[in-house]
């Protein structure tokens, strides 16, 4: 069914200028005229607008903007990512669903995507406001054959993927705040939450959660984050097709991930640093017992944060710390 419908969409979209006869479709797909009609009805439910004229045939007028398993799959040029798509109009959190699916054995590349999250999850269970049809709320399940200590590199990788897509689609240069927040004009536009289940030397699964503000206006962003958050629409001054963006992200992700497996982290590091937020500037670092100022020098070959301590001039590498990026230099 699924593949017939995808083929049907393909035929229609390759013939957008002219009508294509029911007879021809019927021969190409080897199904009856009434079966074609049923498929057309289903496509209309997904948001396709199809015109049918007696004696001339069918023509596709409009592609759907709304997200469904079908609309995401159509035109998606990937080998392994999103071969299984779980779409929920509303859910608590895509991370939550993805964890359940992964524990039940969901395969590498499975994605969970929602129109709306009621309990969007940020770091340490901080809330992420994920309003209906205005953003990308998605989780990717991965089962990579890499040692667990290398897994954090995937969060940096994902950040470069989002930055690449934003750059290409908007022409606005995004920055990546170490390790993985996407910043435009000093405001957060996208966040990534990566969770892993691993044994000492083997990764069971990794779930990469992506939250991206796309079509929100300042009104629809929660008041408490007005000064800290932004959306693609607010920055680029136009609406974006979420379905299209999701496909671009998935395609770019697959490409980058393959590159990473072949060539390792150095290629990701170079890309990451080209988007690096506040490289060369002073930042304030906090750990449980200390607080100190340092210059952010870049990232190391494994993704760790390299900073030069302002007191003793020594270079340090950090994997985990609270960093105050926005404090004025002093």
């Amino acid at each position: 069914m699924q593949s017939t419908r995808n083929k049907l969409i393909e035929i229609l979209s390759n013939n957008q200028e002219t009508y294509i006869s029911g007879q021809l479709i019927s021969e190409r797909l080897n199904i009856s005229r009434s079966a074609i009609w049923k498929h057309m009805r289903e496509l209309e439910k997904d948001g396709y607008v199809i015109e049918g004229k007696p004696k001339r045939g069918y023509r596709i007028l409009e592609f759907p903007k709304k997200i469904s398993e079908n609309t995401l799959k159509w035109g998606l040029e990937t080998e392994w990512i999103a071969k299984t798509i779980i779409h929920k109009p509303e859910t608590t959190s895509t991370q939550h669903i993805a964890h359940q699916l992964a524990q039940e054995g969901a395969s590498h590349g499975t994605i969970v995507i929602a129109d709306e999250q009621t309990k969007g999850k940020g770091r340490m269970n901080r809330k992420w406001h994920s309003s209906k049809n205005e953003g990308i709320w998605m989780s990717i399940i991965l089962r990579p054959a890499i040692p667990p200590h290398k897994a954090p590199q995937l969060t940096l990788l994902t950040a470069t993927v989002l930055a690449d897509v934003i750059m290409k689609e908007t022409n606005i240069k995004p920055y990546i705040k170490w390790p993985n927040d996407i910043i435009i004009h000093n405001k957060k536009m996208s966040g990534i939450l990566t969770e892993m289940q691993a044994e000492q030397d083997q990764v069971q699964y990794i779930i990469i959660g992506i939250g991206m503000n796309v079509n929100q206006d300042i009104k629809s962003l929660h008041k408490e984050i007005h000064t800290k958050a932004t959306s693609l629409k607010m920055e680029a001054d136009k609406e974006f097709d979420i379905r299209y963006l999701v496909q671009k992200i998935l395609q770019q992700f697959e490409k980058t991930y393959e590159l990473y497996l072949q060539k390792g982290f150095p290629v990701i590091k170079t890309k990451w640093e080209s988007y690096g937020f506040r490289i060369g500037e002073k930042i304030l670092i906090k750990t449980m017992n200390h607080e100190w100022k340092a210059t952010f020098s870049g990232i190391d070959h494994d993704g760790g944060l390299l900073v030069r301590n302002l007191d003793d001039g020594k270079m340090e590498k950090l994997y985990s710390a609270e960093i105050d990026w926005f404090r004025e230099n002093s």
Partner: protein
Amino acid sequence: MLTIEEIRELIKIVDESSLDEFTYETNGAKVKMKKDTQYHEGYTIYQPVQTDEKTQEQMSVETMPVQSDSKQTETGESSKKETTSDYDHEIVSPMVGTFYAAPNPESDPYVKVGSEVQSESIVCIVEAMKLFNEIEAEVTGEVVEIMVEDGELVEYGQPLFRVKTT
């Protein structure tokens, strides 16, 4: 425990690496290697190796008692406890990062001393570069000791919990 061969191997690895300095610490003993290098970009990385802690190693390389910082008391305590506390499994950190005892600051910790765990019970989270790694017990038994504090930085291979398996 480290043998002379292993130390030789370590020296070789450190020598060939871009490291300036290398420190390895275990119960009461510390190995520190330092290169005389002109690199200005050098930095320190700790890479503890998990070893049998029961024997105090005589090392031909620079061996010294651990400095009298907070670590000393910890190490001292744990070595004392070794003889008294009854455990046969250590849950160690699979990566460098921050140790979190609870899923979020408002929640209760995943486990306490005395908690019964199954092999798939989550005992803590270790976070590095915003990747949150849920650590499973991997054994069935009782938690007899928690060796790190909430929010503490932990190293690769550092023991986090001691478990008496059942």
